[in-house]
């Protein structure tokens, strides 16, 4: 078993619709592997195949060296799963949720109690141990769901959008726990459409879009490869789409400093290794040419820029489809 998870030409179709299209990836032991992509990219479809919920349409999928399709029970006994939608037992208390779940893994009572106590303290849920789950906040429910997934001391922890819908504070608390698990060497597979989550937690990741893998690598590698170190954002005063001729003037001024660029509405984003220098140069040139600018901003390039570059869409768009560019 070289890899914790190995997928080759993994495909999922629903009727005639292909949700996951012949993707290849492998997850190493001890790493946190990310599936980054907007809503509808095929993340959940992929993850559901990995934990044996949804049948593989075609391709090869090995989980901890086992074929998940033929050996689901054994494989599932070694997985910890946090699915995208909450599926706790709402009528039971926090502790009962853990104990009942332990029963599904056939842990004996004593082990189950010990594990439950450890998990309650690790997830910071001791005070809530006897609260009925229905009455918990979204953040606490998520923490319990993650804790419940740890009951069998899993070889791989699979998290499908673990912090979607949480407020920033609750999200941060979840991240802290996940980072600690990672430091303890837990192998993790995490899907997300938050680039910050991916860059904070993932050692390596794949960027998914429309069921395909666009890129894979470490977050830093991807940023470096596609967009470089810095992003210079230039806001024009035009109300309409900026003319190509104007864009070209700026690109020419940048010359070889321009690694790549993106036009986003009335903004031009130029990616470069030398942001400060380029930023100053463009400002000067624009002043000389008397081109009025609404603003100019220099910031570090991020995974979001990589995604924008690769797809022409934003990753975390509120309409769930990815905001299309002009």
């Amino acid at each position: 078993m070289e890899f914790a998870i190995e997928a080759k030409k993994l495909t999922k179709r629903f009727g005639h619709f292909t949700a996951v299209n012949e993707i290849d990836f492998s997850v190493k032991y001890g790493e946190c592997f990310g599936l980054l992509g907007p809503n509808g990219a095929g993340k959940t479809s992929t993850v559901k195949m990995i934990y044996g919920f949804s049948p593989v349409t075609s391709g090869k999928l090995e989980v901890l060296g086992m074929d998940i399709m033929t050996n689901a029970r054994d494989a599932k006994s070694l997985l910890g799963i946090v699915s995208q939608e909450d599926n706790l037992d709402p009528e039971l208390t926090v502790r009962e949720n853990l104990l009942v779940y332990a029963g599904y893994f056939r842990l004996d009572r004593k082990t189950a109690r010990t594990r439950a106590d450890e998990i309650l303290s690790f997830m910071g849920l001791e005070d809530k141990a006897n609260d009925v789950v229905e009455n918990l906040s979204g953040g606490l429910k998520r923490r319990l769901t993650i804790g419940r997934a740890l009951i069998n001391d899993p070889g791989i922890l699979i998290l499908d959008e673990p912090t979607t819908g949480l407020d920033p504070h609750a999200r941060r608390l979840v991240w802290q726990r996940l980072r600690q698990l990672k430091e303890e060497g837990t192998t993790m597979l995490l899907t997300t459409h938050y680039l910050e989550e991916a860059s904070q937690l993932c050692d390596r990741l794949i960027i998914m879009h429309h069921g395909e893998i666009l890129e894979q690598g470490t977050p830093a590698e991807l940023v470096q490869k596609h967009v470089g170190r810095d992003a210079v954002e230039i806001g024009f005063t035009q109300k309409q789409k900026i003319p190509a001729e104007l864009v070209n003037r700026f690109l020419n001024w940048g010359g070889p400093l321009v690694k790549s660029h993106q036009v986003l509405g009335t903004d031009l984003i130029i990616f470069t290794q030398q942001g400060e220098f380029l930023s100053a140069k463009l400002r000067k040139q624009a002043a000389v040419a008397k081109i009025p600018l609404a603003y100019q901003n220099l910031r570090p390039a991020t995974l979001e820029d990589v995604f924008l570059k690769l797809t022409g869409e934003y990753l975390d768009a509120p309409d769930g489809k990815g905001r299309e560019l002009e």
Partner: protein
Amino acid sequence: MQNTQPSRLSLLHGISQKPDLSWPLVFSVFLRNLKVFSKTWVATIMFNFVEPLLYLWAMGFGLGVYVTQIQGLSYLDFLAPGLIASSAMFATTYEMTYGSFTRMGHQKVFHGMVATPVSMDDVLMGEILYGTFKGLLYGFVFFTVVVLFGIAKSPLALLAIIPLFFMSAVFSIISLVWTAIAPNYDSFGYFFTLFISPMFLFAGIFFPIDNLPPAIQFLPAMTPLYHAVEVIRPLILGKVYWGMLIHLAWLVALTLVTIRLPLVMVKNKLIK
């Protein structure tokens, strides 16, 4: 994307395959449901128990005064054993429709279970077990009433647990089949109005099915409730005869023939 409703036939996909069952895990699913039930059992038993008691009073003591004899029995004796069966039937069918639909639907409890070594077949078998248990429990509660009223005439009455078991199992199965095809809670209204209530009224609890027009007597004769009542009544009253075994055999056969259905249907509904 399109979340197309599967055709009724595709719900039967895999029916000929052997179910993937691990009995200890089936039992853990059953225990989970029991644990939830244990939180509210006093209230729910009271709720389900009052209704047949009202029927017993209204029909047995009220109407019964005008009915002197029915198949050689007082009306109370005729009626009460049937209410044991109907009490069980209602408990099971409510649990395996509204209850199961909630667990598989918005609570997603089934989804949580199958993310462990538990298989979907285990989950459904655990549900059937639980539905059967609830039928037995509510049947037993009403049985104690029947004993208190002095209606049970023989220790053989205790054997009523056997037909009650199979009848509850059949009702679990039928209800889960309906739940598998039900798009929403409203559709359970049809289930109760079209099947359960008519069964309650016409399947031999309140009057013998011989009183129905001969052309339609086959209808109640096809229902599990009728066959259960035909076994339970003689047992409670201590008037057993060999022919009862045919009714019992019918219940057992129906259980065995149908039990695979909800397993595949719910699996096909939930897993895409």
